[in-house]
């Protein structure tokens, strides 16, 4: 009994920081409608900045002052990011905002290592709270008690801020109707900036408060952001109270989950999240509405199947690719095979995103499940490569069936966050369940059959599989299923009204995409001869997103081009610089801001350029039906 109490107290202490970060994310989302992926990065920056300041200035004033100054400084950095970057993309589709803030996260990861070095740092203890007191014969750190009290205090202060100040009233009004607020004479620009600064301040404070408890590391950003996503999905985006309740819930589940299932403690949180999503898809304290935003589309140009000429061109490119082994060496071929694998991975994500309108931030889960599936088949059942290439993707399919069922109940940012959370749960299972997955050491010895064991042989195998895979995905786009999917994407209600089960169609698309990602993953396992948890990790998911974005979000098969360019660039970049994340993050941000239609989208725009309409001649002159009704 007393042990359980101690465990509960420890959970509550962890909840404090989680609440701070999650409430910051929620407040920012409420007003700006941006899910700030970089929130974890600000949490980490808060911890690092607090470490530096408290390290330099000792004593109570140095410590508490250091925490505060560090958080304020990081908030200023956040405000700068809002002014420089986010103001340019408030009107952009959600996916772009998530990607841009993720790009910032990547850059911060490298910058942090550059400034503070790669080693974990140990912060000072909090002056006056270094001891512990005894409870039922067990020791409870006094600092934990301080944190436990801090949570409700911050919740109360935020409540006062939002209900007793003009600024707070404006923020709450803007959360509901930004346009109306500006029509009443409020300059939203600075309202947004100040809200963003407050949210970042809370994240940084959450990080700074952690330094007496845990070491400061350069990967603490991704671990917290996933937990925060889970918290806001459970609590409801935009609700500070929801963030508080869910932070406590998740922290307690973590604290007790370790007792029940020490190996896979994330499972308990996942189960609770699943139940909440089924009962209240908008979270415990969220609101059902969350005004659905237009799909990823920026401009409208109907898709067409390829013309005979275009088909000929594609056939020629495939033929040239098939001839590559006659002219290049082994290294180029293994790079080529890797690029091919990612072409299929990106194409599967592209199918789900552009045709289905479902922007997944956790597509790596199905890629990795395919890879692990193939590895299990070889290691535990001793099947040959040919069979493993079939069995592996089945695991991806099963994962997509299970996770997809939950995910398609949501849309937009909720969908993105949930897919990410599922991927991260899958990752943590692969990482923690060492007996089965080998944990960090992975599974080795996944070699192809003799005929495909040469670089040439494997390249041809990969080419064959990938060409067929991409062709099938493309055929699906122009099949009745593809039309239904596009209908569900463009208007779920209208699709339902003409007899399409929108959710079911999207679920099917999710499963198709997951299965093809699984095929890519299984190929990847045999290409590398091994499987590691990295195949399931966030960077893998984001690689896929960047490939899709680079190729062109509105195109039918732009991801193919995007994958080739991106993967070739990334492999080259890795060999050129230590700061690949900094460069990559910068490229992502640049892409989103300056080049949002991608390579293929850009080319298509150029091909379909219309002569500008003469002045005064409206769409009528261009043969476009005029919309009569206007509000």
């Amino acid at each position, binding site marked *: 009994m007393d042990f359980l109490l101690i465990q509960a107290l420890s959970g509550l202490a962890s909840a404090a920081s989680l609440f701070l970060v999650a409430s910051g994310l929620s407040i920012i989302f409420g007003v700006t409608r941006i899910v700030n992926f970089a929130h974890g990065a600000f949490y980490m920056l808060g911890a690092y900045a607090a470490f530096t300041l408290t390290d330099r200035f000792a004593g109570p004033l140095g410590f508490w002052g250091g925490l505060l100054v560090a958080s304020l400084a990081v908030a200023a950095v956040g405000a700068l990011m809002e002014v420089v970057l986010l103001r340019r993309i408030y009107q952009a589709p959600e996916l772009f905002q998530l990607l841009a803030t993720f790009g910032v996260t990547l850059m911060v990861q490298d910058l942090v290592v550059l400034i503070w070095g790669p080693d974990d740092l140990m912060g000072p203890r909090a002056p006056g709270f270094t001891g512990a007191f005894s409870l039922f014969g067990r020791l409870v750190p006094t600092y934990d008690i301080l944190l436990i009290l801090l949570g409700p205090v911050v919740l109360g202060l935020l409540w006062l801020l939002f209900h007793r100040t*003009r600024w707070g*009233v*404006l923020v*709450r*009004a803007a*959360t*509901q*109707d930004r*346009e*109306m*607020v*500006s*029509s*009443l*004479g*409020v*300059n*939203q620009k600075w309202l947004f900036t100040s809200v963003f600064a407050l949210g970042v301040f809370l994240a940084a404070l959450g990080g700074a408060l952690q330094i007496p408890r845990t070491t400061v590391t350069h990967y603490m950003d991704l671990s917290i952001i996933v937990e925060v996503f889970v918290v806001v999905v459970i609590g409801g985006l935009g609700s500070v109270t929801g963030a508080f309740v869910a932070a406590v819930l998740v922290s307690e589940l973590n604290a007790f989950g370790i007792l029940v299932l020490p190996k896979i403690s994330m499972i308990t949180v996942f189960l609770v999240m699943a139940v909440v999503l089924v009962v209240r898809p908008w979270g415990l304290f969220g609101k059902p509405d969350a005004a659905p935003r237009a799909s990823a589309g920026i401009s409208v140009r109907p898709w067409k199947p390829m013309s005979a000429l275009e088909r000929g061109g594609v056939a020629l490119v495939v033929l040239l690719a098939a001839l590559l082994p006659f002219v290049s060496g082994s290294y180029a071929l293994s790079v080529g095979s890797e690029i091919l694998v990612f072409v299929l991975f990106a194409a599967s994500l592209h199918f789900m995103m552009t045709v289905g309108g479902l922007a997944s931030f956790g597509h790596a889960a199905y890629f990795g499940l395919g890879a692990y599936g193939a590895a299990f088949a070889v290691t535990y059942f001793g099947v040959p490569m040919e069979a493993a290439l079939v069995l592996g993707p089945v695991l991806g399919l099963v994962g997509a069936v299970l996770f997809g069922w939950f995910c398609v109940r949501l849309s937009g940012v909720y969908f993105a966050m949930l897919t990410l959370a599922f991927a991260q749960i899958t990752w943590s299972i692969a990482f923690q369940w060492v007996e089965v997955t080998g944990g960090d050491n992975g599974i080795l010895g996944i070699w192809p059959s003799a005929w495909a064991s040469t670089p040439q042989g494997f390249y041809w195998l990969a080419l064959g599989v990938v060409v067929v895979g991409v062709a099938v995905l493309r055929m699906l786009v122009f099949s009745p299923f593809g039309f239904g999917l596009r209908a569900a994407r463009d208007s779920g209600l209208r699709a339902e009204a003409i007899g399409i089960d929108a959710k079911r169609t999207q679920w099917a698309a999710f499963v198709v995409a997951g299965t093809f990602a699984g095929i890519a993953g299984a190929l990847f396992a045999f290409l590398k001869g091994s499987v590691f948890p990295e195949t399931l990790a966030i960077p893998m998911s984001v690689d896929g997103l960047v490939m899709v974005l680079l190729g062109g979000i509105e195109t039918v098969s732009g991801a193919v081009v995007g994958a080739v360019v991106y993967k070739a660039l990334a492999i080259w970049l890795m060999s050129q610089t230590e700061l690949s994340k900094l460069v990559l993050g910068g490229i992502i941000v640049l892409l989103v801001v300056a080049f949002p239609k991608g390579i293929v989208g850009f080319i298509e725009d150029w091909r379909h350029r219309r002569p500008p309409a003469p002045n005064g001649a*409206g*769409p*009528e002159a261009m043969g*476009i039906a*005029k*919309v*009569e*009704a*206007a*509000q």
Partner: protein
Amino acid sequence: MKLEVSGLNSFYGQAHILFDVGFEVGEGEVVALLGRNGAGKSTSFRSVVGLVPNRSGKVVFEGEDVSRLPPYEIARRGLGYVPEDRRIFTELTVEENFEVGRQEARPGVATWMPERIYALFPNLGEMRKRPGGHMSGGEQQMLTIGRTLMGNPSMVLLDEPSEGLAPKIVEQMADAIMTMKKEGLSIVISEQNLHFAKLISDRAYIIEKGRIRFSGTIGELEANPEIRDAYLAV
């Protein structure tokens, strides 16, 4: 002239909605913008206050071209806007809704305090702490007008203020608009028919399919039943 609008062309995406719309409002005048559902009344208002990004044309308010200004700048110059769908903040109380609209006093213009608005709409005074979402349609209409008045505007665009209201509330609304006029406010109201507009307006414009089709006094409009029947709802 208080407000001069000319050559207004507005688009929603590819759709051309307004075609060279123009109208004028004199100091202290009440002008009606009449037209059927979908004729372009709301788009005209939204274009004037800067809420339609894709538009061209000129909007001159108090002698200054405001057509390139963001909505909040236009509002701060004293041009208030009351939207058709009311758009009150449902989570906020009556008092808080007023707080969002509050602006500094403007020299030479009537200054509004919550107490003055409660005098104008006594119903609101009895529900100061009630969230906007828990109010009737008529009360919400009063709230949205009061909220705009809190910005101490010298001119107000009222988009279909009588729509969907009980006759008794409509009367109250007409009284309130007359009070606003007496305070020196210039007012444009949009309506689908003449019933309400003729109670309070000096002049009227008729808009149809995005074009201004008629301009004249209320008397002229009443003397021309064929125009009324061609363009207005009965």
